């Protein structure tokens, strides 16, 4: 065998000296590694916030694909405009109107999922140390972006009626008095990820007023609004104001996250910058995916599909709540009227992040509450996603989770809460 290399020092990253300071925030984590196990079929995953795409009408998707290839193939396979396909944007207008949101087709920008829209907005508005106000807890993907932008993430007290206007005003005034620049309020007002709670109509008005008075831009992220169980949620905040709100929507939950198509409706000045930023980042959103969505919306009864999703997720939500009541009687849970998630609160002293390896051993996975806070909180919380497993498996997963919790409660009692 040949000699290849002499000894020396290595850290396996020859470019460590060259990274931007913000790249320091990017590191592997044990929790992320644990999610690798979730893909095993033996494991019931209550972790990832995934829709049940098996409930889609596959034939309709195939028809949409065939129609696209027959009628718009050369457009679908070509670069597109930075703002997105015009026909799709017109169709998006119709979807937004269902929630009282009206805006010019010129003010809509198609993005690679609404996550990309959030990235673009954060890039436009956030300098290091700028404040973003968010719910407590808040969406993990948003927390990740804001953290990467080195923003100050301020969680505002949130209860079963959504973010508290009183706490919002207090936080904004306190931070302003400290000399901080408060740039954004990020909200998922309908069936929030991860808490499942919905902001009441009264609070929407109050939140808007508080932000307008203080010139804080509201980022209203609404991927779940159409997925209600029974009663519709209140109209979007954007329906009340078109200058102080940037509205994000997505096809990930009402159609397919694999297509990665989302959109943002923004006031013209912001929209102008968003389009330029979009072009700068990706030239154009994927034409192929946009046109497939557009064809689907043209030929399919997509509202009927949404009704199918609502019924399905309601059944799963019921299964989840029944299982929590049966197996986890000491655990508090939210009772969402739509969306994908339950938010559990465990007894003091339990740590959901540290419990996760035990849960994986019991063949169930969830997302620890710490993922949804930028300030280290959430150890006593668990997010349960009921949308993806079958209703039966939702129950199985929660029963398995109860075994883990009981073991942990046993350990906690053994070692004491003051450990």
């Amino acid at each position, binding site marked *: *065998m*040949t*000699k*290849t*290399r*002499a*000894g*020396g*020092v*290595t*850290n*396996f*990253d020859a470019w*460590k000296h060259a990274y931007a300071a913000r790249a320091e925030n990017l*590191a*592997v*984590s*044990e929790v*992320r*590694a*644990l999610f*690798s*196990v979730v893909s*095993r*079929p*033996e*494991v019931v995953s209550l972790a990832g916030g995934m829709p049940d795409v098996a409930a889609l009408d596959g034939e309709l998707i195939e028809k949409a694909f065939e129609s696209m290839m027959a009628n718009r193939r050369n457009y679908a396979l070509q670069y597109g405009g930075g703002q997105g396909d015009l026909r799709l944007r017109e169709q998006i207008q119709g979807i937004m109107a269902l929630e009282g949101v009206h805006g010019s087709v010129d003010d809509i920008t198609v993005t690679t999922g609404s996550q990309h829209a959030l990235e673009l907005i954060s890039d436009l508005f956030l300098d290091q140390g700028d404040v973003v106000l968010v719910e407590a807890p808040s969406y993990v993907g948003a927390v990740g972006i804001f953290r990467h932008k080195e923003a100050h993430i301020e969680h505002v007290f949130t209860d079963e009626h959504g973010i508290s206007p009183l706490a919002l005003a207090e936080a904004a005034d306190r931070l302003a008095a400290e000399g901080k620049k408060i740039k954004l309020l990020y909200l998922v007002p309908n069936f929030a990820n991860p808490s499942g709670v919905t902001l009441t109509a009264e609070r929407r008005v109050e939140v808007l007023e508080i932000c307008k008075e203080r010139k804080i831009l509201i980022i209203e992220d609404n991927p779940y609004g159409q997925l209600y169980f029974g009663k519709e949620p209140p109209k979007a905040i954007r329906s009340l104001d078109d200058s102080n709100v940037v509205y994000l929507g997505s096809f990930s939950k009402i159609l397919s996250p694999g297509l990665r198509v989302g959109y943002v409706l923004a006031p013209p000045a912001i929209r102008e910058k968003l389009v330029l930023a979009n072009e700068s980042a990706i030239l154009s959103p994927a034409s192929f995916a946009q046109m497939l969505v557009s064809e689907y919306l043209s030929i399919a009864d997509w509202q009927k599909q949404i009704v199918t999703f609502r019924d399905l997720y309601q059944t799963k939500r019921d299964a989840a709540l029944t299982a929590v009541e049966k197996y986890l009687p000491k655990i508090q849970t939210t009772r969402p009227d739509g969306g994908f998630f339950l938010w559990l609160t465990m007894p003091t002293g339990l*740590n959901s992040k*540290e*419990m996760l*390896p*035990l849960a*994986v*051993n019991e*063949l169930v996975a969830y997302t620890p509450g710490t993922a949804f806070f930028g300030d280290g909180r959430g150890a006593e919380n668990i997010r349960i996603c009921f949308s993806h497993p079958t209703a039966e498996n939702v129950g199985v997963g929660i029963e398995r989770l109860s075994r883990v919790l009981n073991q*942990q409660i046993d*350990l*906690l009692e*053994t*070692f*004491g809460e*003051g*450990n």
Partner: protein
Amino acid sequence: MAALKVLVLAGGISHERDVSLKSGRRVADALTDAGALAEIKEPDGELVGHLMATRPDVVWSTLHGAVGEDGTLQDLLQLAGIAFVGSNSAGARLAWNKPIAKVLLAREGISTPQSITLPKSSFRELNAESVLAMVGTELGFPLTVKPAKSGSAQGFTKVSEPKGFAKAMIDAFAYCDQVMVEKFVEGTELAVSIIDLGDGPVALPAVEIVPESGEFGYNERYTPGQTNYYVPARLESTVLEEAARIALIAHRSLGLSQLSRVDFMVDESGKPWFLEVNVTPGMTETSLLPQAVLAEGLELSDTYLALARLATKN
């Protein structure tokens, strides 16, 4: 010579699945480069049938966690008469159980930090607070708390003061029903890999581990750039020779075969303290054994193929 059919086992239902998959892909790629026919397979309900139907020339397991490291897989392969790279079930069992391995090596005159192993059940009968107070007093702080049977760094905590002791125990019990509390040795962290290419086990150049954060945790192990590795280690040659000697004793006295990695702390006086031995060392891009192989001047692909070929003759 016909191409060797190697089934690389990787993944599994374990919190180390991700690391195992990375190790498996590295091994399979290196074997393929050397001309072997390497197939990666995750253990599942079809594994036994797959093994019996395909009868690979040799199995190379990079499975971390219980099934891959506690002797179970090795037992099954031995029963099926299928050759595999690495130690047999008896050796794997001894190495997997850290407290047992420490006892056996102490009998060989090897220094290993004072420790105590505490099963979860014992705390139900004894008062936890008083047990931990006594252990803390006797071993002194800092000390380390780790699952008695586990790989990687998960469940490991260095405890500097009594306050964090109970929490560290709860963390470790999340990974194993037995926890080992060990006196912490200040000094230099060192790993000595052993390979046997047919002429008997050889200690490869020792790798000195210097994590930027000061602790060699999960992030430091698997995020490139978080840890500096010195190969060979920047220690006196007499110290390195002593570490190599101990590593070889550990490999032999536990009855290990072909490859292993022995972990040490070298104290300020230059004395190497044995911590544990691993029969399924990590083989990822940042892992220690591949670094030692390269530092020895060997090609990974040639070395892995040689190990696989030799396994068929054992």
